[in-house]
């Protein structure tokens, strides 16, 4: 145990301070505890994710895709929003997860949950290996490195068509019923339940991680990379850990897509997917855990609606929304909302 005063200040200066009562000591912990507590907004949010079952049962397939993409965006938020690692190649880990689950199923093992675990493992191992490069760089170099890694991987997958099916995609995936009971139906009922449950469980893990001492260290890295070594922090070790975790989560998202759609194409590794997820996260707001979730929902519903209007030009609207959000709402949709909330609170 560390002595209260340590060897820091001489006895006199410590004695000058008002003696601390237990009550005074409880306060700082309580404050930190209160920040971690579940907010009403969060509970409402998760209840709202159940609405598609009731309100839009014909859109459950889309809802399932949104949940999967939200999970993918959550994994990007862990490295970008909490650690300042900008990635334009996050689809690499999504793709590794998708191909792992797809191949397992193609080879005759279509059990979904163990498929997820193995996909997470594969993507996590790939993430761990690449983290040794990632942890050495910052900023622009990172964008190029992550982009490069993803391009490499996509071309490898393209050329290894004996394994991946190349540009034709992976054929012959069949996902077994969950727990041997719940079949994947045409309406996406099982798919959405499954994706949403996974999103929620992984979200709980991510939420706990962010509120742990390790999560505090990640915020420290985002806030000031110069100071961290000066308080004895091995930044690169922290970055390697979170990068591996984020890669594993991206792998779970990829596996979910492969299992629920029963197809895997090269597109899972594509630049478009990496760019889209980055856009969604920025749209929703980085560093808030919910930003990726909201961003994915807004983006994908918008895409669904706009592409119904005129399919060729829907990126025009996405471009417009993106410019508007970045210019008018720095911090994304959630950043704007929280500013509104604090302004409302300040008003008497």
């Amino acid at each position, binding site marked *: 145990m560390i002595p*209260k005063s*340590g*060897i820091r200040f001489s006895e006199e200066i410590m004695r000058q301070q008002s003696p601390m009562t237990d009550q005074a000591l409880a306060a700082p912990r309580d404050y*930190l505890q209160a920040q971690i507590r579940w907010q009403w907004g969060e509970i409402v949010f998760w209840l709202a994710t159940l609405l598609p079952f009731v309100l839009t049962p014909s859109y459950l397939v889309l809802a399932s895709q949104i949940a999967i993409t939200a999970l993918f965006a959550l994994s990007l938020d862990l490295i970008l929003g909490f650690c300042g690692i900008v990635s334009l190649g996050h689809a690499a880990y999504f793709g590794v997860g998708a191909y792992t689950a797809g191949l397992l199923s193609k080879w005759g093992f279509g059990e979904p949950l163990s498929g997820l675990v193995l996909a997470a493992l594969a993507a996590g191992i790939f993430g761990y290996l690449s983290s040794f490069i990632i942890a050495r760089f910052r900023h622009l170099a990172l964008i190029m490195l992550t982009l490069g890694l993803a391009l490499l991987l996509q071309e490898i997958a393209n050329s290894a068509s004996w394994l991946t099916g190349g540009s034709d995609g992976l054929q012959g995936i069949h996902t077994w019923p969950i727990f041997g009971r719940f079949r994947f139906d045409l309406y996406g009922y099982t798919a959405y339940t499954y994706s949403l449950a996974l999103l929620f469980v992984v979200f709980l893990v991510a939420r706990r991680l962010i509120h742990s*001492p390790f999560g505090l*260290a990640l*915020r420290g890295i985002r*806030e000031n990379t110069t100071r961290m070594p000066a*308080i004895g922090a091995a930044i690169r070790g922290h970055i390697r850990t979170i990068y591996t975790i984020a890669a594993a989560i991206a792998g779970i998202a990829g596996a979910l897509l492969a299992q629920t759609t029963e197809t895997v194409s090269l597109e899972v590794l594509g630049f478009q997917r990496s760019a889209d997820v980055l856009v969604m996260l920025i749209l929703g707001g980085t560093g808030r855990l919910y930003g990726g979730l909201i961003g994915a929902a807004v983006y994908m519903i918008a895409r669904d609606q706009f592409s119904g209007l005129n399919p060729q030009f829907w990126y025009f609207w996405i471009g417009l929304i993106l410019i508007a959000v970045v210019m008018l709402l720095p911090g994304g949709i959630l950043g704007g909302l929280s500013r509104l909330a604090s302004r409302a609170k300040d008003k008497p």
Partner: protein
Amino acid sequence: MSEIALSARGLCKSFGSLIVASDIELALPAGARYALIGPNGAGKTTLINLITGMLRPDAGRIVLDGADITALPPEQRVKRGLVRTFQINALFPHLTALESVTLAVCERTRAVRTFWRKISAYRHEIDEAYDILAALSLTAVCHRPTRELAYGQQRLLEIALAMATQPKVLLLDEPAAGVPREDSAELFKAIAGLSREITVLFIEHDMELVFRFASRVIVLVGGRVLVEGTPHEIAADPQVRAVYLGRTMGKVPHG
């Protein structure tokens, strides 16, 4: 007391043709209070960067507590008790003061390795951080984000972060830089209150402060050590006077 806590042997560093450190020798006895002075561009901050490992010397060795640490990365030097503060605030703008210091404590106790327990469960780390903030009179603002603190409070937080690592040797880079004189009392109290077990080297321009806190002074000019001596010897030294010609040396207190 005569045990050497930190020493530098023949430290050299140049950027291209610009020599910023030239054969620097120093030896700080345990518990000593050293001031490092010199005109702008003399290489004072560079020397701190070299000692703490933020810069790699071209030649020379750094020895902490008898162990050669020249090859160690900065964070491992911190773990061994060699800690610095920054002349320009290097804080965590969006973390609260309590979160910042708790983070520094957690790095020391290695609590940062766990990601499945809530931070609020780390009672000892939080209490310790709170104690440090209390010793620096920062508890009233400890739940405010760092960027909202007054400048003087941010300077105190610089020291709080360093203290959370439990330093054996503390390098203070102009701790009072930019703090208006009327707000500096708290800061000086903190520096004066540092435990005598901690060896301190501080960069300072204000000679009054140097006289108040330092037992020895090192004068750095053009990347080399010009002289070393007691504050009175330094104040009387003709070489130092020549260097500072045209600058105010401050008043030499009598007695």
